[in-house]
C-alpha cells in the first residue's frame, strides 16, 4: 500500500491518508483483514506527526472501514468493501444536504426511520 502526503495541498494531511486508505479498499490493494502500518511507523516514514496519522485512523474507524485493536494496530475491517464505502459516501452527502436545509442529525434519523417503516 502506497501512502503519500503533500504538505502543500489544501486537504489536511489526515484526510489525505484517509482518502488513500478508502481508495485502497475500493481498488482492492487493501484487502479486508490486512494490517495497516502502525501509526508511529507511518508517521516517521512520511515525516508527519503521529497524532495526524492517528486522527485519520480514528476517522476511518468511525466510518467502519478499519478496526483498531489495543496493542495490535489497525486492520482493514472484515466487512469493509466497496459497498460500505459507497454507503458511507452517500450518508455523507445525505448529511450535507440535510444541513443545507437546516435539519439536524436527529431529523435525518427520523426521516430514515419513517422511510424504513413505509
Amino acid at each position: 500500500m502506497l501512502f503519500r502526503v503533500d504538505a502543500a495541498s489544501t486537504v489536511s494531511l489526515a484526510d489525505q491518508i484517509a482518502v488513500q486508505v478508502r481508495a485502497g479498499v475500493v481498488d482492492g490493494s487493501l484487502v479486508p483483514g490486512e494490517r495497516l502500518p502502525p501509526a508511529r511507523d507511518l508517521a516517521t516514514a512520511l515525516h508527519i506527526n503521529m497524532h495526524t496519522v492517528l486522527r485519520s485512523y480514528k476517522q476511518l474507524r468511525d466510518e467502519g472501514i478499519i478496526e483498531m485493536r489495543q496493542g495490535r494496530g489497525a486492520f482493514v475491517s472484515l466487512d469493509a468493501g466497496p459497498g460500505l464505502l459507497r454507503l458511507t459516501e452517500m450518508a455523507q452527502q445525505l448529511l450535507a444536504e440535510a444541513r443545507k436545509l437546516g435539519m439536524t442529525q436527529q431529523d435525518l434519523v427520523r426521516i430514515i426511520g419513517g422511510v424504513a417503516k413505509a
Partner: protein
Amino acid sequence: MTEVQQRTSVTRRIAAGMAGLLPLGVVAATWLTWHDRLPAELASHWSGTGEPDGFTSTGAALTLGLLLTGIPAVIGIIAAFIPSLRPALLRGIVGFAGMVSGMGAGTWLISAGLTLQAGSAEQAVLGWWLAALMASFLFGALPYFIAPKPKFTTTMHQTRIQLGANESGAWSKTITSKVLLCLPVVLLAVTAIMFIPAFTDGELSTFWMGGGTMLLSTVIVALIAHMQVTVDWRGLRIVSTLGRIPLKRIRLEDIAAVEVTELRPSEWGGWGYRVMPGRSALIMGAGPGLIVTTTGQKQFAVTVADPETAASLLLALRDRTDDGGTRHAGSAQTV
C-alpha cells in the same frame, strides 16, 4: 527472469556434465590397474585413524564405488543435455552429483589404495587419509564452477512515482510465509517431545542446552515468518512483525538499480533468508519480487506483492536524495 548467454554456454554445460564422469573414470581405471593385486577383502571401516574394524569384499566395494560414481555421472550428463534447464538448477544438480560421486570415488580409492599399500586389509591404517576422505565431496565444486554461471540480468525498473516538492511517499506491505508460520509450532512440539523426558529425569544440562537451541531456532523461524517491507526516505527496510526487529535495510543512497521480476527459490538458494556470495534474499516462495542492486554491486531480492509501486517509489526517493533536494523546485505536481 530472462537468462541471456544460454546459447554461448552450451559447451560449458556439456563440459560440466563430462567433468562428472571423472570420478567414475578414476574408479574404473584404478580397478583395471589394481585388480590382479587386490586381495579378496578390503578395509572399509575405521573407527579412529588407526587400523580398520570393518571389511568388505572387493567385488562389493567395487560395485558400490561404480554405483556411487556412475549414477551421479549419468544424472549430471542428462541434466547438461537438457537445454531448457535453468543455469542455477543445472549448477545445483551437477554440483550435488559431483559431491556424491566424489565421495564414492574417495571411499573406493581409500579402501582399495590403503589395502593395496599395506599388503592386507587388516593392516590398512587410515591416518591422515581421513582428511582426504572428508574432503572428497569437494569434487562437486568442479562441475559446479564449470557449469555456466546463472545470469540475473533483467530489465532495470525505470518508472518513477511523481512526487511533489512538499510531498512524501511511503509504501508498506506485509509478507507472510504460511510454511514458516506453521514451522515454529511444529518445532515447539518437537522440542517438548525431545526434551521434556530429560527435564523429568533431572538431566538439566541436556534440557537447557538442547531445549535452548531448539527454542532459539524456533524464535528465528518465527521472526522471518511474518515481515513488513517498507519503502520511504530511510530506503528499503524489512522488519519482522514479531518484536519489530529490523532484518534488512538498504539506504536510498546505496541503491544503484532496482528490478521488478518473478523470483524463484531455486535461483536464490531456497526459502527464507538466503545469503550467498555477493547476494542475499528473503524468499517466501515463487512469485513477484524486487531485486535491488547496491552501489557496492551486491544484490538483494525479496518476494513481495506489488513490487512495481515499491520500485517506482524507491527510485523517485533516491533521485530526490541524489541531487540534494534541488530537484524539488522543478518536479511536477500530480496529485
